[in-house]
């Protein structure tokens, strides 16, 4: 009899631990664990659709563990241009002028090469815990809905709503908002693949909600997790190479 009761208790405990909801901290831990790399190099196609038609650019994005990011445009109308993000500074390199221009702060919210993505969206540290107060707004069958409020006014998006997939802990949908809660951009990710133990959304559609029409599709073509990246890659000297 004792054995039976013990078995029932164990079964209940195990079942409870499997089906119990995760706390906000646990969800964020798993979400951030999927984004913590020593380094990451991706090749991607950016398809920008607007009133003038469709333009396609290819980019090579290199990122280190602290969020320093180098974006090189490898084909398309802006080929040769480079963007370096270090901390809160952005350095733009224009090959025609052989000149590096430094932008600080507010430029992070500006459009990246006319796309629906901002510099902030494509660069920097992707973790959220340090920058936002986070609440679990809702738990759906297959996802968690997180509500984020920026801790300081320097953060590019003051509020965010993220839908995190329960299985992969990838953000499948995000609404990015300004100070007054007005939605600025919406993002939807799909085609999730596992690469070297990390889950990546191979296709992301970003829509600038302040524009009347159009969107930008960001499709990952190659992903390399934790390759060796020389620190010199993220220097101004390398920008003009």
């Amino acid at each position, binding site marked *: 009899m004792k054995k039976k009761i013990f078995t029932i208790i164990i079964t209940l405990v195990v079942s409870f631990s499997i089906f119990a909801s995760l706390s906000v901290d646990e969800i964020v831990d798993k979400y951030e664990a999927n984004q913590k790399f020593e380094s990451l190099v991706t090749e991607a196609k950016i398809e920008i659709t*607007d*009133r*003038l*038609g*469709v*333009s396609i650019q290819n980019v090579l994005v290199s990122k280190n563990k602290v969020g320093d990011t180098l974006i090189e445009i490898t*084909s*398309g*109308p*802006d*080929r*040769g241009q480079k963007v370096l993000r*270090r*901390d*809160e*500074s952005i350095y733009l390199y224009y*090959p*025609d002028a*052989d*000149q*590096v*221009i*430094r*932008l*600080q*702060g*507010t*430029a992070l*919210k*500006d459009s990246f090469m006319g796309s629906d993505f901002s510099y902030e969206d494509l660069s920097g540290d992707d973790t959220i815990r340090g920058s936002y107060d986070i609440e679990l707004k809702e738990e759906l069958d297959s996802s968690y809905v997180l509500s984020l409020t920026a801790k300081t006014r320097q953060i590019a998006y003051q509020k965010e709503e993220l839908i995190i997939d329960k299985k992969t802990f990838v953000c499948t949908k995000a609404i990015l908002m300004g100070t007054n809660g007005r939605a600025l951009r919406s993002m939807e990710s799909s085609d999730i693949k596992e690469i070297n133990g990390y889950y990546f959304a191979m296709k992301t559609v970003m829509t600038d909600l302040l*524009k*009347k029409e159009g969107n930008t599709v960001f499709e990952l073509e190659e992903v390399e997790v934790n390759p060796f990246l*020389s*620190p*010199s890659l*993220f*220097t*101004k*000297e*390398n920008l*003009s*190479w």
Partner: protein
Amino acid sequence: MVRERKLIFIIVLLLISIGGGFCSMNLSGKEGLSLSEIYYNGNWSTTSDANLTFNLDYNTAGVKSYFQYDLSISEKEYEDNLSKAYIKFRLPFGENYITFNAGKTNLSWGGGFAFNAGNPYFNKYLTILSAYIPLSLNFDNGHLIYFESFVTPPLLKSETFTGGGRMIFEFGKVLVDSFEIGGVLGETGDFTFYGGLNGNLYFDYGLYTNFSLFSFEDVEFSGYVLKYFGKFNFMAEGNYENDLISLILTGGYQIGEKLGLSCEVFLAKVGSYTALGLSYPIIQGLNAKVKLMRDTLNNYTVVFNLEHSFSQ
């Protein structure tokens, strides 16, 4: 002239050979057409011109070559210019690289759009041999120090021998991003000192100076402040040289998704003007611009411009 053509030919051949032929090089460029209506001394006149820029480049981890040819045609003259034809090599040096540059290019020192006292050859193209050497690198603290030296061997008739160098201290801080100090030794032995400072103090800023060590009268200062406020951007640039102060204020505003409005005010003792401009992308890669300028003598200029860029 023959010597110059020969040099160009050799450089082009070298570029092609390094690139493994045209098939592995990238081609890009711009074509532009301008029509200007000028109201001067009570009379209207019209001028027009066209320009074309071709770029060929080849880029690997260790070698970069770049070739730029400019062609300009107006009603009265035709001008062509090989503005850039250079090759860069870089060799591993610890976790960084030493970079060598040979060929015709511009010296990218200092900063600024209209003025740059930090660059003795601002907006000029020279035949340069240069080396860019990392001296001290502490990436964790953002402290980087580089040394760049250059000489301009007088390969072309129009060029004379000069040389110089600069030290670049990158602090990676918001208030002071980088500091530069250096100088240029001219053909006659005169030495021009140069210094520069970049950072952010609410506005992004750059301050530059150069002066002759033997004559403090030849002093030049320039500086700019720049700020983006979302759809609105503002920039002020100033320059002091030969007891003359010049100032340019520019502002840009994006109306709707595509239409850009710009305003420019130039103030100087020798003459001032104000300008208003509109720009609009008609289709992908094709931009239309209109600019209206008025100077202090009540002369007007209206410039219509179409510019197309391409890349393969």
